[in-house]
């Protein structure tokens, strides 16, 4: 067999994200929830101790989950299992790699461990997904080795406004880079604080070099369809499912909404009788803006 190069490892990691496209990644806190998510059609689960809404409510420092709890979830499902580490906390990431997690989310949902440096993700064999509010953040994370991007949105709020803002911002900036003259790309790279090669990729392809999902505040099938129509390639749903009245039904409805995101008739059916949605918090009422963490 041909020797594996670092390059092909990164390609394989980006390609795993491609396989998740058109799917829904759900936050789960127990093996039981993981099974419910898989049965409802999740393409992956995010194992964490507390869902963002509860992290928000509990306050205090929020850290990587107990590896024993993550292992329990790994054993419960056949779909990929992701887990979160704190921004800059490369030791937590090493632990997650040691238990063979499928994807690490270096996440602003947890308390940041470093207010300057993100993890050098090129040093890891397992893939990383990172949050971003705009093109600069996305490309900086990719430069550091992220093989998948998601909007930051505002986790645990059930309010989609920030995810919408971040997705529109990203699209706007990609369109701007695409329309630039080639001699303007050097200055653009300086402005975004990333390498010329990444800016050139966006200029030529009109998209990020990795898969881009929506996350942070998606609570209904309509929210998911909105994000897909705005150009998301898939959706993370956190608190929105297991904080709602009928998690199983809502999860399955969101999965179908992502597949047929343009079919309003079907979306109407999917949105009917879902029981109570998570209560949610409006952005003006939030004390802690998680999206401000890690630029």
């Amino acid at each position, binding site marked *: 067999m041909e020797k594996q190069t670092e390059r092909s490892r990164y390609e394989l990691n980006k390609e795993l994200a491609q396989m998740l496209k058109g*799917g829904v990644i759900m936050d789960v806190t127990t093996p039981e929830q993981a099974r419910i998510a898989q049965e409802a059609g999740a393409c992956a689960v995010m194992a964490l101790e507390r869902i963002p809404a509860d992290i928000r409510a509990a306050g205090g420092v929020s850290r990587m989950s107990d590896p024993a709890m993550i292992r329990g979830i790994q054993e419960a499902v056949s779909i*990929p299992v992701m887990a979160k580490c704190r921004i800059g906390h490369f030791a937590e990431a090493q632990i997650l790699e040691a238990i063979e997690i499928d994807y690490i989310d270096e996440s602003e949902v947890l308390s940041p461990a470093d207010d300057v440096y993100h993890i050098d993700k090129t040093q890891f064999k397992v893939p990383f997904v990172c949050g971003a509010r705009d093109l600069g953040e996305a490309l900086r994370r990719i430069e550091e080795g992220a093989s998948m991007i998601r909007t930051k949105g505002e986790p645990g709020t059930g309010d989609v406004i920030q995810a919408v803002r971040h997705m529109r911002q990203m699209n706007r900036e990609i369109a701007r880079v695409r329309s630039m003259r080639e001699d303007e790309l050097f200055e653009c790279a300086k402005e975004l604080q990333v390498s010329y090669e990444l800016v050139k990729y966006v200029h030529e392809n009109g998209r990020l070099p990795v898969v881009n999902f929506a996350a942070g505040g998606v609570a209904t099938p309509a929210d998911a369809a909105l994000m897909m129509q705005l150009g998301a390639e898939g959706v993370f749903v956190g608190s929105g499912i297991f904080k709602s009245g009928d998690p199983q039904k809502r999860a399955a409805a969101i999965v179908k909404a992502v597949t047929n995101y343009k079919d309003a008739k079907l979306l109407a059916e999917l949105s009917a009788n879902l029981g109570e949605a998570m209560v949610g918090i409006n952005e003006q009422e939030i004390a802690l803006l998680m999206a401000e963490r890690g630029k």
Partner: protein
Amino acid sequence: MRVGVLAVQGAFEEHEQMLRALGAECFEIRQLSDLSGQMDGLVLPGGESTVMGKLLRELGLFQPLWEKIEGGLPVLATCAGLILLAEKISGEDGRHLGTLPVTVKRNAYGRQLGSFYTEAEMKHIGTVPMHFIRAPYVEKTGDGVEVLSEVDGRIVAVQYKNQLALSFHPEVSGDTSVHRYFLRMCENASAGV
């Protein structure tokens, strides 16, 4: 050639790009109404087989696609697609379309750390780049199944009549040879060869 690509979840776009680059026409299958037009071939892409299997059933696509495959429609299935076609999934009771007489082992190389890249011979085609991503492999083949490729003694590509099924992902490799072979299958089938 007009090829339908199952687009309920996964890397379907990559297949479409490759088939279009080879001059084929493509359409996405997301719901029953998408099946109304002419279809000379079907692609079951990579993604998560549990998601696709569930959506196939709930969107009413299962029976019509099963009938088309049994009726001889050429199919290219990659990774999760192979699991959808397999008659038996190792260690599990359930199955999906079950039109391909093989036993397939899910996540056979382990988690993402076990994903790998290699190049190997594929019968009728030659050397092809192979991207294995949380891939399955074929444990057992039934009568009439032709093994097209093995890697480290594991079966990673098979053909059974109109069904071409692979553990790996030619759609992300930049190499069009597998898709070219598949389009020839489609041409032969529609010409009645």
